[in-house]
């Protein structure tokens, strides 16, 4: 059936959709499917149709669904968004305030889901790294990404991944050739401007690090304006043999912003991975970080920090899947919850039957600052191999009274003493970041945030 024909029968389709458990999800799912039929996409039609077919089958996750137990996204999306209007104009001219000062990097900017060439500057030569928009890459570089596109991040693994695969507006292909060290980091700014109207943006990144290459990526998510923003973001990173990826994500959306980010990283033999995720603001942030260790002697470190206040809901779901022997993974996520905020953490470690000699560690620590903040955490180990060392630990509590007393007895006022202790708690996760400019920027961001509130 052609796309046009599909659009015409869209109304009919509404009636044929499977029976969703609640009437509220029924409408939103139909609206999203309708939005798909109304959109005109140039590229990747086969991928999109396949993903849509899956999305039609599952729809947005209901609250009862285990993976989205604490995160009622469907409801928020229905309440706050008009799915018949997807494109929105931005009035942003200067992006200076959203950049990281003094960071010498390639700058790639998305505004409201569209790649903005005028704001972007690429300084690395093409021999070091090839950067293209996905729309362009589909026409010229299909042989590079066809083996990976929508394969590592299977649309069927998550309803939002399916939605993204069907409806993505723009994206990037980042390709690092074999044995290349990209000297300048890549800074990607996802900016959503809801000054005039609501924004729905769906973007996608595919990054490939060929054998023996090295790359550092920093992604920053910002938004402004008073209207609602929904950003559904997917990315796939292929880290091949002996490659090294440094990945940092800063989520600093303001106001009524809802974000779902699906990140999947596939590691091959002898590869090294460092990821860092910082969540500061937004109405609702959901991160799915999946790391597939599909090689021997891999090393994977992933760190996360969520500093939440107001009504923010910060939800981090991580998966480390050890498929081959002799690898190492270490995870540390920390959270500070203030106001009415809610922190959700779910960390899965899978050790498959043949992944002997795996070492996998995980820790999740939370501090609840206010009376009405909550945390729901679920560390999860699933082990099918016997010769392994795996552990997880998680805690929830408040500041140590004795430590606080110690500081106060030395003449430090209570708010400052609290801020000091919280800062010490939070800044530990920054230690593995290698880029000094980035590190001091994040450090300031955290310190500012903690002092402002306590």
């Amino acid at each position, binding site marked *: 059936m052609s796309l046009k024909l599909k659009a015409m029968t869209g109304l009919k389709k509404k009636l044929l959709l499977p029976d969703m458990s609640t009437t509220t999800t029924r409408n939103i799912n139909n609206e999203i499917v309708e939005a798909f039929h109304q959109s005109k996409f140039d590229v990747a039609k086969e991928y999109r149709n396949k993903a849509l077919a899956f999305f039609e089958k599952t729809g947005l996750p209901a609250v009862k669904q*285990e993976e989205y137990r604490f995160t009622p996204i469907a409801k928020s999306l229905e309440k706050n968004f008009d799915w018949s209007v997807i494109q929105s104009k931005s009035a942003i001219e200067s992006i200076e305030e959203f950049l990281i000062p003094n960071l010498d990097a390639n700058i790639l900017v998305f505004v409201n889901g569209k790649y903005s060439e005028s704001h972007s500057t690429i300084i690395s030569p093409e021999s070091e790294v090839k950067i293209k928009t996905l729309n362009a890459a589909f026409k010229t570089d299909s042989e590079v990404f066809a083996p990976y596109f929508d394969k590592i991040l299977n649309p069927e693994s998550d309803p939002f991944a399916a939605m993204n695969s069907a409806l993505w507006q723009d994206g990037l292909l980042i390709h690092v050739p074999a044995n290349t060290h990209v000297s300048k980091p890549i800074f990607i700014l996802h900016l959503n401007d809801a000054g005039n109207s609501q924004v729905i943006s769906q973007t996608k990144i595919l990054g490939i690090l060929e054998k023996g290459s090295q790359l550092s990526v920093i992604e920053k998510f910002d938004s402004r304006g008073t209207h609602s923003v929904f950003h559904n973001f997917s990315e796939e990173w292929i880290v091949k043999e002996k490659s090294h990826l440094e990945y940092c994500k800063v989520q600093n959306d303001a106001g009524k912003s809802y974000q779902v980010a699906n990140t999947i990283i596939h590691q091959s033999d002898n590869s090294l991975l460092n990821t860092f995720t910082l969540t500061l603001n937004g109405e609702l942030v959901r991160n799915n970080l999946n790391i597939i260790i599909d090689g021997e002697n891999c090393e994977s470190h992933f760190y996360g920090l969520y500093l939440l206040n107001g009504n923010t809901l910060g939800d981090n779901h991580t998966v480390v899947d050890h498929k081959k022997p002799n690898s190492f993974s270490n995870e540390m996520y920390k959270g500070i919850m203030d106001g009415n905020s809610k922190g959700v953490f779910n960390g899965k470690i899978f*050790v498959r*039957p043949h992944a*002997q000699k795996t070492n996998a560690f995980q820790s999740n620590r*939370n501090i*609840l*600052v*206010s*009376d009405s*903040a*909550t*945390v*729901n*955490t*679920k*560390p*999860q*180990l*699933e*082990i*099918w*191999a*016997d*010769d*392994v*060392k*795996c*552990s*997880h*630990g*998680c*805690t*929830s*509590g*408040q500041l140590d009274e004795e430590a606080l007393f110690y500081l106060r007895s030395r003449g430090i006022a209570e708010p400052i003493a609290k801020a000091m202790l919280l800062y010490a708690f939070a800044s530990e996760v920054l230690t593995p970041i290698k880029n000094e400019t980035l590190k001091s920027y994040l450090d300031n961001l955290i310190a500012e945030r903690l002092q402002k509130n306590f």
Partner: protein
Amino acid sequence: MSKGNQVLEEITSKEYEHGWNVNLEADEAPMGLNEGTVRFISAKKGEPEWLLEWRLKAFRLWEKMKEPTWPNVSYPAIDYQNIIYYSAPKKKATLNSLDEVDPELVKTFEKLGISITEQKRLTGVAVDAVIDSVSVATTFKEKLGELGIIFCSFSEAVKEHPELIKKYLGSVVPMNDNYFAALNSAVFSDGSFCYIPKGVRCPMELSTYFRINAANTGQFERTLIVADEGSYVSYLEGCTAPMRDENQLHAAVVELYTMKDAEIKYSTVQNWYPGDKNGKGGIYNFVTKRGLCFGDHSKISWTQVETGSAITWKYPSCVLKGDYSVGEFYSVAVTNNYQQADTGTKMIHIGKNTRSRIVSKGISAGKSQNSYRGQVHVLKRASNARNHSQCDSLLMGDQCGAHTFPYIDVENNSARIEHEATTSKIGEDQIFYCLQRGIDEEAAVALIVNGYAKEVLNQLPMEFAVEAQKLLALTLEGSVG
């Protein structure tokens, strides 16, 4: 490690020793479940009208419910119409002493190495023996009666203490709590009831032995223990079951209710038939156990040693409602061959300054799957709640699996919650250390496993610890203990 593998080989090939079949003429309900079955059971037991109504209500709820699919276990679908829901030993005369007990029954216990007479004489344990759903022997009853303690079968309690049953039945585990609790509420056959009056410290360990006996009989036990203000009781429950080819369903409900300053200690050693080494047969053990710390400063402590059953699905929980109440959960779960266990606990902190502690030790061998699933939930008003959870898994062999699903939900900022879990195998360096000191490999494995489970075994009362170690040894060779 070749010797170690050999030891494991021996362990996994060990046959179930306690398999036997007593020939008791059973008085059975017709196969299948409908309103008639519920009425039949109720009439058979001469129950009052209100209890029949209660059962029927539960049955109607059950009809509308769906079997849960979230546990990490898989088994062929159960045909609930292919089960006999009631069977009782024929002899129903009132018994005053052990002499009147069916001699075959006594023999049965002797075979198990836990003769009632011996226990009665040597250990001072009052035994309420349950064979196929009807209590046939109750000992030490008079002695307990002097203290005002009620310890009797459930059906007896319905007749003699209806006011207590009416008040507490379903107060901790409501009939619509879950699929199997509803099923049990509709068709429960018998069980134990225990009431400890104000300020009484029960002088002896109370104990029941459950056995599944006639073929095709699901066991639907119901235990209710109420500890009044300032009282204390330690209750033991142990299970062994005969060899059987088809799967048997066991859906029990245990309710504990503690008032101000009271304490209940509930210990279980579970050794239902686990199926043969190809995973054929074995008991389905779907149990709902829950304790309510209703009064301030009350305490409930669960200890379990789980070695049997083809499938275990069980979460002894504590609802910490009273301020300063305490919940504890100690568990050793051993799975071998094709056994599957999904077990753990729930600690619901409602009152202020409530504390809970979880120690769970899983051992998986053969091709078994062992899951810990637990929840620590601190509600808004539970300030200063404290929890520490530790769940460790030990893997023996490379075809088994260990899984951990802890849920930690905190809504109060003064709560301090800690959770830790590890997974590992017996370290080669540990074995080497023992070998170096002249301890052979088999003894070394035993030593390490024993040490690993010690923290939990130590919680068991003396009389039980011996049997627990025996059962552990049965599942994991003759090495433990």
